[in-house]
């Protein structure tokens, strides 16, 4: 027996590590994406090459609002904001928003609006709307009405809008409200679109020139300057320092000292869509993906402050992570002001369960700029 052991020792280092296989699946981090922040290593060349500057400097955009529209302060992401009132007390909301993204993807934007009216997406631009000349360029005019009643009073909803691609920016002019009122205001809206003109040669503005209503939108990855989120902090919640992604960040205490993490993030456009994001969260708590129908059944709607949040509540079936514990995510998605808003609470099951009501209160108090 001793001899056998000697032999073993010679090559045991080479061939052992045996039971490794049992663990390999769980421990392999060779394809895991990591994110970290580091101080700049060298003096950065933050000024982009000239070609890129050119593409990004868009002319300033001006407009004249029709008489009868109530001007509202241009807060947050909105460059212009108006209210049109109907005789019966109904209201239509008019917004002007721009993205510092290059133009394109007209269909995606039209389909996002169609989605807001619960209309099926279209695949051809011709079906989406029609081009109209504005300020010597082409604006895409869209007129959509929902098939089902979506307004609180049981009437249909309507969106009329103009998508206006400029160098390095896309402008969205949009009126949304009850079908009848928007229909009645359509001529005024078209007149509004026709009033849009460009001040060519205007110096490219930065997000710092915040006072001007035409300042380009600050990049969505940063907190919106001058338009902080308004909310009521639930008892016990603590504000955490913001990261580049988060517009707000909190720590919500749990029963055994373990706290849940709450974040508010806004991304431009649909950010992949509700389903993709919900499935990404499901993956985080080791739940399998679901389809659109299942999402509609599973998700709840929370209406607050004129917003309609889609709320999902996901809990892991078994303890996961290190140390192993049941994890839970409660998240609300909102499609507002051409952005997708994600308000998410995540943490150990006990902590999230304890803060569930506080999270709903937080949503109700939240004022999306």
């Amino acid at each position, binding site marked *: 027996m001793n001899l056998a052991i000697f032999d073993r020792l010679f*090559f045991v280092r080479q061939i052992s*590590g045996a039971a490794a296989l049992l663990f390999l699946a769980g421990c392999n981090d060779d394809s895991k994406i990591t994110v970290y922040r*580091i101080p700049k290593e060298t003096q950065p060349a933050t000024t982009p090459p000239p070609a890129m500057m050119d593409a990004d400097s868009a002319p300033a955009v001006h407009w004249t609002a029709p008489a009868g529209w109530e001007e509202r302060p241009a807060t947050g992401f909105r460059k212009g904001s108006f209210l049109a009132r109907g005789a019966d007390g109904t209201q239509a909301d008019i917004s002007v928003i721009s993205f510092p993204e290059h133009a394109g993807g007209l269909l995606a934007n039209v389909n996002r609006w169609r989605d807001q009216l619960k209309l099926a997406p279209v695949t051809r631009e011709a079906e989406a709307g029609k081009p109209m000349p504005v300020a010597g360029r082409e604006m895409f005019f869209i007129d959509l009405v929902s098939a089902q009643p979506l307004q609180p009073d049981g009437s249909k909803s309507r969106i009329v809008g103009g998508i206006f691609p400029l160098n390095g920016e896309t402008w969205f002019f949009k009126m949304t409200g009850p079908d009848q009122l928007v229909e009645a205001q359509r001529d005024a809206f078209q007149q509004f679109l026709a009033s849009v003109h460009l001040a060519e040669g205007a110096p490219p503005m930065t997000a710092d020139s915040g006072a001007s209503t035409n300042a380009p939108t600050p990049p969505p990855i940063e907190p919106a300057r001058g338009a902080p989120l308004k909310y009521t902090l639930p008892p016990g919640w603590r504000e955490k320092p913001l990261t580049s992604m988060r517009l707000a960040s909190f720590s919500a205490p749990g029963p055994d000292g373990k706290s849940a993490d709450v974040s508010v993030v806004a991304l431009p456009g649909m950010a992949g869509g509700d389903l993709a994001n919900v499935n990404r969260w499901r993956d985080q708590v080791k739940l399998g993906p679901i389809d659109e129908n299942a999402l509609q059944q599973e998700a709840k709607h929370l209406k607050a402050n004129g917003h309609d949040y889609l709320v999902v509540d996901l809990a892991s079936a078994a303890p996961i992570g290190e140390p192993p514990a049941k994890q839970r995510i409660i998240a609300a998605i909102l499609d507002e002001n051409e952005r997708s808003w994600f308000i998410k609470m995540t943490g150990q099951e006990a902590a999230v369960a304890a803060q569930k009501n506080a999270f709903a209160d937080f949503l109700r108090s939240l004022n999306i700029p």
Partner: protein
Amino acid sequence: MSTTASAPNEFLRPLRFLASLRLTVVCLGFGMLLIFLGTLAQVHLGIHSVQAQYFQSLLIFWSPPGAGWKIPILPGGYLLGTILLVNLIAAHATRFEVSRRKIGIFLLHLGVILLLIGQLLTGLYARETQMRIDEGQTLGYSEAPREVELAVIDVSDPKFDQVVSIPEGALARQGTIQNPTLPFTLNVRRFLPNAHLAMRTQEPQAAPSMATAGFGARVVAREIPRTVKDDERDLSAAFVEINGVQRSLGTWLVSNAIGDPQPFRIDGHTYELIMRQRRFYKPFVLTLQHFAHDRYAGTDIPKNFSSRVRLLDFERGENREVLISMNDPLRYRGFTFYQAGFDNNDKTTILQVVKNPAMLLPYIACALVGLGLLVQFSMHLFGFAKKRSR
């Protein structure tokens, strides 16, 4: 060698097979064959590939040249190691009795089991990387010499860079990669583990590039077989498409053969794309103050290599000078820094950075085996001496 006769036979039969000495001998035979074949295969495959294919595998496959199928021909190192471990434990469960007379063998076997487990943990958790520091340079990360990453760096903040590091494993799968901190998705359209890059002006007949942005359109990338030589490394490349919310921004060619990052702008942020050796950042930094390459007087024969570094750790308030030389590594926060090489006319040091949480286990295992042997032989020796003196 006693068995518990009262236990049911059906239960014991498989256990007896697992515990049999015959199985041990067969495994040892295969083990020797494996080492022999693995050594020969290093000529064509290189040591890293052999380690992965022969020793860190369940089965060794063979396929005829040019064929699309493969068949297993030998058990791999992991399989043999597992069987040996089970065999040893099963032997103790069935054949060995705990007695004072057998304590040496018992200790020895315990050492062998620890060695096997230690190797398993090393295989799972150990990581060897390198740190290349120029004199006067301060570095807070080490690099994997044989693995690349695609770094997507948000350089908009004047003070900090936010880095999303996509390792080779994720790139090799190709397809869409998304990360919640990025306002766009990356589509890895093609990954070339080893590539030959040439300027298009030199190869005008080459097929058009997939790349539409950055320098990629001017470069021809051709896939070549991965290198098996120990002193060579692969130059990887990938075609990566950036998809914004509304449209694609273009396809970039990235490669660790090209050191310059390629910038692009989206949502008012400037990002840089760069493929480089995979980095592992440390919670501390090292500054190379001086690298010494001592020679024997009057000759060019190296006598000693050493690096004088300053270790700075803000988290732990550490700030001291350390001399790392060939047999005198720096051990700090679970990392061991060995003097591994030098470059650049003795102005650059190369440190091997090893992190192995199971580092102590082989020492303990060997001590146990040694102790077990000592006890067992001493018992025999004293027994024999006693008999003689009688």
